[in-house]
């Protein structure tokens, strides 16, 4: 169990690590260049893995709705924004505000998609996050 916790912790830390590295690249180039290299280098590694292990294209992929292919486009804007932000407001602020946006939009998506969840817990969680965002913007 402690091993799983350790790997999950590393998984989270690696999110901040890659943001920090991409942020450094954006300082020498631009946020969009940084996003390009992030995707291009990742594509190279994943292509090598596909060549080594196979399993890239399976028959089931014919059933995928077309909109699901938009993830890469969204990802490019996401990485460019995070590279720009981390070099300006710092890693902790960037991480915290992205988490706030992800959590609140997640609640909105869940409600739109009729996913199960306690309305009271949702209201309480969203209120705490909004209060945190307000506090982070306050003068002192």
């Amino acid at each position, binding site marked *: 169990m402690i091993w799983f916790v350790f790997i999950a912790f590393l998984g989270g830390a690696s999110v901040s690590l890659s943001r920090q590295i991409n942020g450094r690249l954006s300082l020498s180039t631009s946020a969009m260049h940084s996003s390009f290299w992030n*995707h291009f280098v990742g*594509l190279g590694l994943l292509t090598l893995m596909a060549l080594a292990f196979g399993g890239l294209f399976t028959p089931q*992929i014919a059933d995928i709705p077309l909109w699901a*292919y938009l993830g*890469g486009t*969204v990802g490019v804007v996401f990485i460019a924004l*995070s590279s720009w932000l981390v070099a300006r407001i710092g890693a902790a602020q960037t991480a915290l505000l992205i988490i706030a946006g992800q959590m609140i939009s997640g609640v909105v998506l869940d409600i739109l998609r009729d996913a199960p*969840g306690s309305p009271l817990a949702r209201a309480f969680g969203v209120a705490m996050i909004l209060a945190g965002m307000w506090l*982070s913007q306050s003068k002192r």
Partner: protein
Amino acid sequence: MSHTSLPLILAFGAGCLLSLMVLFNGTLATHGTLLFASWVPHATGTLVALVFLAVLRPAKANASRPPLWAYAGGLVGAFTVMATSYTMNTALALSGTIAIGLAGQMVFSLVADARGMFGLPQKWPAAKDWGALALIIAGSLILIFFGGAA
């Protein structure tokens, strides 16, 4: 609205994009393999970034050559996918993976800020920033474990 709230709005917006990205790529993963669900967004993302670069022509910030490791962000990102898809299928499940991942993100970014790691500016949170951190993480944990956010 003051100009100082621009980073807040952009970061919050980026978080909303992340939710969409998880939905899109997660849908790829329910039909295809994990490798497919990671390869496709990287391939389309590479092409889309090239189009953005050609259209926007963003100026390079300075002429100095970045260190070679600055190009390694994509390799670390691939590790993220492997680590989280591994722990998602253990006793931790998705909620545990996200919750512990939040801790990993915050601890690493605080250390990175404190030391100005990887050539980015050094900073340390003010008292109110710690309050904001506590509120946002506590609210997130409530959503993850009771609000169905996982």
